């Protein structure tokens, strides 16, 4: 009499095993990191490295298709929350905090953040002597003055003044004017220029002075 009951119990218990979830079979979403690209001024392209990993393989996927797997996601750029994955994002020059927050269907969150630096283009503004200046007789020395712009806070900029009577050889190292003062100016034509550079950029600017310019 007991055997059928025992058999029934074992049957029911064995069926119940199939209702138990084994975590080893589940797919796990991994966020390996985020990256960015700034091809043009004020344009920020953001990319995420997402993987769907299980015991057998690891498949990359885009955030655009993550709606099938995720409950929600959003980007945070500085203090702005952006619920879109549409590139490019508009961003000004400077340093920005970028964070990607993912929320799965269970309400768990996963995030990664980076600091994005949008470089301002390095530029040189030559101040004096002005273009075409030729009255050397009234002075026994010429001071070359210029201004460098677009140096970001995280950048270190260097610059040199070059002076030569030959335009083609202006940017040679021996033409660097250490104290930016030429004395006395004896020739009728001079080419002078400034080379400014940072780790990322190098820019040049030149002028011609003298009566034969």
């Amino acid at each position, binding site marked *: *009499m*007991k055997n059928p*009951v*025992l058999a*029934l*119990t074992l049957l*029911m*218990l064995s*069926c*119940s*095993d199939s*209702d*138990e*979830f084994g*975590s080893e079979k*589940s*797919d*796990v*979403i991994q966020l390996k990191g985020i990256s960015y690209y700034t091809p043009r001024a004020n344009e920020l392209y953001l990319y995420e490295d997402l993987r*769907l990993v299980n015991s057998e393989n690891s498949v990359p996927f885009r955030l655009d298709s993550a709606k099938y*797997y995720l409950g929600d996601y959003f980007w945070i750029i500085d203090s702005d929350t952006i619920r879109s994955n549409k590139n490019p994002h508009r961003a000004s020059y400077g340093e920005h905090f970028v964070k990607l927050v*993912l929320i*799965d*269907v*269970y*309400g*768990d*969150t*996963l995030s990664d953040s980076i600091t994005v630096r949008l470089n301002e283009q390095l530029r040189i503004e030559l101040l004096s002597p002005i273009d075409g200046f030729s009255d050397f007789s009234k002075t026994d020395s010429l001071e070359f003055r210029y201004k460098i712009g677009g140096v970001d806070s995280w950048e270190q900029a260097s610059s040199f003044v070059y002076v030569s009577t030959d335009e083609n050889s202006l940017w040679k190292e021996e033409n660097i004017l250490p104290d930016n003062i030429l004395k006395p100016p004896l020739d009728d034509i001079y080419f002078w220029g400034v080379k400014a550079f940072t780790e990322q950029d190098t820019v040049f600017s030149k002028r011609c002075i003298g009566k034969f310019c």
Partner: protein
Amino acid sequence: MKKILLLTLIASMANSAPLFMLNMESDIDSSISALWENSIMQILKEAAFEPVKIDPEHFAKCENIECAISAARVSGAQGLFRGRLRAEGKDSVSVRLCIDWLAGSSNPQTDVQGIAPLAWDETIKSGIILKLLSGITGKNADIENVRNKNTVISVETNPEYAVVMLNGNAVCQAPCAFSDSSSMAQISAYWQSGDNLWAAKTMVKLGNDTVKVFLELKRSFAGTEIRTNPDNASVFTADILDINSKAIGKTPYNMQGLPGETQIRLFRKGYNDTLLNVKIDALEKQIQFVQLTPITDPQKISEQNLLVKSQNKKDIGLGLLGGSTGPLAAGILLCILAQDDYQKARNIKRELEYPSFGGENFKAKIDENHKAVKNGNLKTGVGAGLIGLSLLLAGIGFTMSF
């Protein structure tokens, strides 16, 4: 035929030995009780018996009537006379007379009962004493037929169509008429609707050719309370007692029913079964007292023990059979609840098929799934155990019951 032979035997025994008389039980006026006792003694003497009034102290050592009968037999009495008078309404008295005849090895008993007027002169006129005594002694020759004239009794009731009873026996449905030759008659009527009973009764003096009786029925809660000594005897219907007999109650037992006479059987371990005539009055609550007699015969004791044992076994079996439904129901309920847990686990498992980060909420869901399965397993295990237990109990109960 047996009764005639018995009465013949009794008659032949007269004058051979004294007939012991116990004091009559009575709840009526003591002077009328004394008149009854004296008259009975006188009539018995005239019928050639030797009635001897026995002081109760003669049977002081006896706790029951069986012992008193044995003691009377030892004393050489030819019989033991007992009587009882009970007030029956305002104007009448219920009489019961009984003699245990002590000749031979057995104790044959003669027993009569009737209704008599409460007034002594009416009792004498009715000749009921002679009628009753002839019933238990078999001496009809001395009965004086004081009345042989029939009186037509016409009965009407409100409401109509009530059952009309003459001296406790149903005779017709009102309005109706019937005749009787006695000097007094108890006319009662009852009308039943569902569980409710309306009844009325009256005593009528019969002397004229016609008597008209009108009974206004009132709500009746009458019944007869059966008391025994010792009490706690099981009350059965009058059928033969076997292991399938089902007790309808225990004494003291309040018997309800339609007015009239019915039979019940009283059973108590160690005592003889007693088949009892119970009279239910239309209007008044009655108390009927029964002295149970102990069994002395070893074979009877053995048979009764066997019956009791069989009944107990059957009762235990039925108890187990009935008791098995509890675990069965609980077991089935647990199994059903277990299925709910499994369903919950399945639903969670389905949810868990979505990819996750493996975070806290995901782990909590897995724990919830595992807990549901664990609960289901526990309930299934306990439920199946209870079902198994109930089957075991039912099997044992069935084997013991049938």
